[in-house]
């Protein structure tokens, strides 16, 4: 079983929900990503989502787009992201790392070459935002064969008839995008999210994570009551963007500790 699968089983055994923070690799500096990853774990992260910078992040809002632009200005590419993961693995061998990004950098490296290199670096899952199952043409199988979980998205606009098709290609967990719109959008309707998750669970035995629109302990708690995992991206990236130099890691640690308290409050 994959590290992601084991993580969810262990959490369930302790009646806990997963907290999955997102940061963009190379933001704000090349040397800060690995220390930030360790800080995320210390502050209570169960899985780390590491963004691979891309020049045209179509599905992201301005906050994560700016992070991508900063990382690219620091000359961070897919190979650097793999090297950062390998560096992280020298100390941490238990926390799953999911790479999240767009198709083209992976396609350019070659799907099989990437899958092997990612596995060797200690990556556990891969989410390529712009490769739906229809276009995965065995990409998901290539990832699975290399021992990587292919993570897929479901959204409020996904019809029930499509859910099974997506789930069949997926591994690790299902990432439910709780809002129409790009990352960093506002205001969740919890009843609507709960209904959708119930529908997804009817077709799916994988854990279901929810992302988009989670910005504090209260929203994290509300989502943790209905989902298996809480994914937080823009809020953390925004903290990185606004923190004074030298304060980035402390600020992120404080924020993630707060989100952790929110997630754990849901289990009490």
């Amino acid at each position: 079983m994959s590290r992601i699968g084991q993580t969810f089983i262990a959490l369930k055994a302790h009646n806990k929900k997963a907290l999955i923070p997102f940061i963009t690799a190379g933001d704000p500096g090349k040397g800060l990503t690995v220390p930030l990853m360790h800080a995320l774990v210390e502050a209570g992260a169960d899985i780390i989502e590491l963004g691979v910078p891309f020049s045209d992040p179509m599905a992201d809002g301005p906050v994560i787009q700016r992070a991508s632009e900063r990382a690219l200005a620091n000359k961070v590419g897919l190979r650097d992201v793999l090297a950062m993961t390998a560096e992280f693995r020298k100390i941490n061998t238990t926390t799953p790392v999911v790479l999240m990004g767009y198709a083209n950098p992976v396609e350019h490296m070659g799907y099989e070459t990437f899958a092997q290199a990612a596995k060797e670096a200690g990556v556990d899952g891969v989410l390529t935002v712009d490769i739906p199952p229809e276009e995965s043409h065995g990409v998901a199988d290539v990832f699975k064969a290399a021992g990587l979980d292919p993570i897929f998205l479901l959204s409020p606009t996904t019809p029930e008839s499509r859910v099974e098709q997506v789930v069949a290609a997926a591994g690790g967990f299902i990432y439910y995008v709780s809002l129409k719109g790009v990352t960093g959008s506002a205001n969740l309707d919890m009843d609507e999210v709960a209904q959708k998750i119930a529908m997804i669970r009817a077709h799916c035995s994988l854990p279901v994570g929810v992302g988009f629109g989670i910005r504090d302990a209260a929203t994290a708690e509300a989502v943790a009551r209905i989902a298996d995992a809480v994914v937080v991206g823009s809020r953390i990236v925004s903290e990185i963007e606004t923190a004074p130099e030298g304060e980035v890691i402390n600020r992120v640690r404080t924020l993630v500790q707060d989100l952790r308290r929110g997630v754990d409050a849901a289990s009490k």
Partner: protein
Amino acid sequence: MKLTDLPDSRGHFGPYGGIFVAETLMAALDELRVEYEKARQDPAFKAEFEYELKHYVGRPSPVYHAKRLSEQYGGAQIFLKREDLIHPGAHKINNTIGQALLARRMGKKRVIAETGAGQHGVASATVAARYGMECVVYMGAEDVIRQAPNVFRMKLLGATVVPVSSGSKTLKDALNEAMRDWVTNVESTFYILGTAAGPHPYPMLVRDFQCVIGRECITQMPELTGRQPDVVIACVGGGSNAIGIFHPYIPFEGVRLIGVEAGGSGIASGRHAAPLSAGTPGVLHGFRSYLMQDENGQIIETHSVSAGLDYPGVGPEHSYLKDAGRAEYVAINDDDALAAFHDLCRYEGIIPALESSHAVAHAKKLAPTLGRDQIILVNLSGRGDKDIDTVAKLSGITL
């Protein structure tokens, strides 16, 4: 499978095309695909489209024998397909009429568009006014400056123009932003994509709407010359005017099809917008095609004097036609395009768009290598009023 049968049911032209978008858009693209299938089989839809093209747009556009230009260039006879003469000044309207009629069928009251040179933005604002729809146009901040007259035209037509300041501040960034709007407002909004690119079904439906250009030529050329041309030349940014004139000519095996990309400061300089001439396949903006990218798969900033060709990708059908050898693709530098712009002004009394000037410039190179009895048909995709500021500036003149 015949070249003319593409794309397949999932939008693939061989390895190119497809649907590479985030999950949130999948249902909307499926809805569009289903609705378009119904529309294309509906005689009433076809009749209304044709009525609008005839009475509102002013089609068919003429084909014109540019005799003075042909004499000047020496060699083959150059004919111009005059898309610059249709309302409101470029081929883009053929597509926006089609998509606006689809939007109305689907009950969408709000349309959005991306634009580079502003031609598609103007064509979208035009149809939005014509059919009473709200219209928002995304435009790179750099393009907003260099295409100021078109920005004002869009505003006159009632559209909201949103400058996009991310990335390279040009067409690709405007497209990113339009996609973001669509993903957020997917239920109320119809995205009028401006070129034969993007996720399926856009490359197919934009091509189908633009094919009126080539179909007219197939009738007009024999009327004028007794036969079909030896060569058809069109400029290629995203490639909608080119695919519109090429596609109907694909079965005419004796007709050479040549797409002209923007060579900017020259291919060797790296400062250009010519993915088919100097790029490699990849995935961007929802489809697979030739792209301008670096060794990490990041998209490279493009450079061209013409905002409408300043795009790092190209419609997937062009990538397929290139690999299949049915069409050839070349690049023309800024300087040569500008020279051709002036040639057409001085010898024919036609001010062409800088985009279309690239196609004329290649005719200038090719014509002397052909006999006087040979025929080159150039798609003059738009008129150049919008470009006079750019040309004045390059000539050191302040208007």
